[in-house]
């Protein structure tokens, strides 16, 4: 399914009227074809999280439209899964019960939940940990649980907000590889937020640069390289430089 975002605008009024309001997003427009991998990169506070929260239905836009296959959707829609930077696992649920949460709220029977969740446990390299609580897991494993928990619902669009930001660089590159594998075996559309230029270029088909407040799309870079990408190649370096220049100009602006 294709996603089309037109002139998304978000203004936070704030609790204190004296302080005025914050315009977090202004005129965000982009589209994503079915099965594409798109990254967003931009300075802190430019509204990336706000944008994903609107796309997930957790927040409503002040104005603008989000359409799926050309049809505008209301704020509460059910096509998107969300992976949080903080993992956001339920600490009182075991790994398998965390993964099965979406099935649980859909009323799938206990037996079927267990079977389906167990498939994800194996596929995500969590076998042997299914009965552990999240606190007993490493960061990389917790994030795999979080991704499995989102994907078991089979969302057509996967929103990921700096999912690997808290991981060490080695775990991070393993997880990037893992995510690419999962994405390539599916037809899911991934919208991925990162602060890391290499990560954006390594993973995505298109990188959007978001300018600082108010957030708007200031750069579009289609990455025309086959997977798996060689991070030491000239082509990779050129993309890297282009994005770096954009981010530098944003920092100078603020």
């Amino acid at each position, binding site marked *: 399914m294709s996603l089309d975002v037109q002139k998304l605008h978000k203004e936070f009024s704030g609790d204190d009227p004296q302080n005025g309001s914050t315009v977090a997003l202004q005129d965000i427009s982009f589209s994503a074809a079915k099965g594409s991998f798109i990254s967003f990169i931009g300075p802190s506070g430019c509204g990336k999280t706000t944008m994903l929260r609107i796309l997930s239905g957790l927040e409503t836009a002040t104005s603008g439209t989000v359409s799926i296959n050309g049809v505008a959707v209301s704020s509460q829609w059910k096509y998107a*899964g*969300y992976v*949080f930077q903080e993992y956001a696992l339920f600490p*009182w649920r075991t790994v398998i019960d965390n993964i099965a949460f979406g099935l649980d709220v859909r009323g799938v029977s206990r037996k079927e939940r267990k079977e389906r969740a167990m498939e994800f446990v194996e596929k995500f390299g969590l076998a042997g940990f299914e009965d552990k609580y999240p606190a007993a897991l490493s960061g990389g494993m917790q994030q795999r649980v979080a991704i499995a928990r989102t994907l078991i*619902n089979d969302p057509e669009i996967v929103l990921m907000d700096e999912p690997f930001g808290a991981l060490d660089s080695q775990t991070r590159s393993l997880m990037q590889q893992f995510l690419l594998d999962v994405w390539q075996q599916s037809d899911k559309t991934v919208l991925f937020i990162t602060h890391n230029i290499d990560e954006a270029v390594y993973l995505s088909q298109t990188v959007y640069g978001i300018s600082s407040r108010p957030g708007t799309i200031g750069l579009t870079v289609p990455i025309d390289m086959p997977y798996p990408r060689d991070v030491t190649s000239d082509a990779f370096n050129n993309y890297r430089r282009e994005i770096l220049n954009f981010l530098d100009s944003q920092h100078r602006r603020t």
Partner: protein
Amino acid sequence: MEIFTGIRDLVLQGLPRGNTLVLHILYSLLRVACGFLLAVVTAVPLGIILGWSKSLRETVAPVVELFRPIPPLAWIPIAILWFGIGLKSAAFIIFLGCFFPILLSTISGVLSVERILVDAARTLGADDRDVFVKVLIPGATPSIYTGLRIGLGIGWMTLVAAEFTGVKSGYGLGYMIMTARDIQRPDLVVAGMAVIGLTGFLLDVLIRFFENRSLAWRK
């Protein structure tokens, strides 16, 4: 030493004669159980709703703060007017003693649940009811248990004091102690106090047992 002989007399002969210790304990426990359970089934759901809704919380909070400082024992006269002397008024007094600590810990437990867990549940397809049952309640459970322990402790203390002022049936640990005082038997008074302390302790052990069983994830 006298305490042990005192306890032995209480167990075997009873005070007044025939009303043995076991029966006193059972009557006291029954009153506490009624008041405590009533408090649990009202304070926990109310606490979860108040923790959830800021506007309701701000409306109800002044009322709660007005009633909370009134000692449960100060309610005895009105309880007797409303319910007469008996199990109902005893349970009502205990209920008042247990209610506020359970309510306040439940509210603070819900407030301590990270927003992002609610967001995660929503994006995974949870409706309001799922959020209540599968996120807010389990997330607030550690704090609720703290409230249950404090509430039951206060309820137990309140009960024994309430029984001082008279019970119709002639049973109850507080009643037993007052009887011992009336017949000038300090050994039985002290023995009664020891039993009260021990029973209160065992009640807490019981709650902690359930707490550890249902909160295995915290370790």
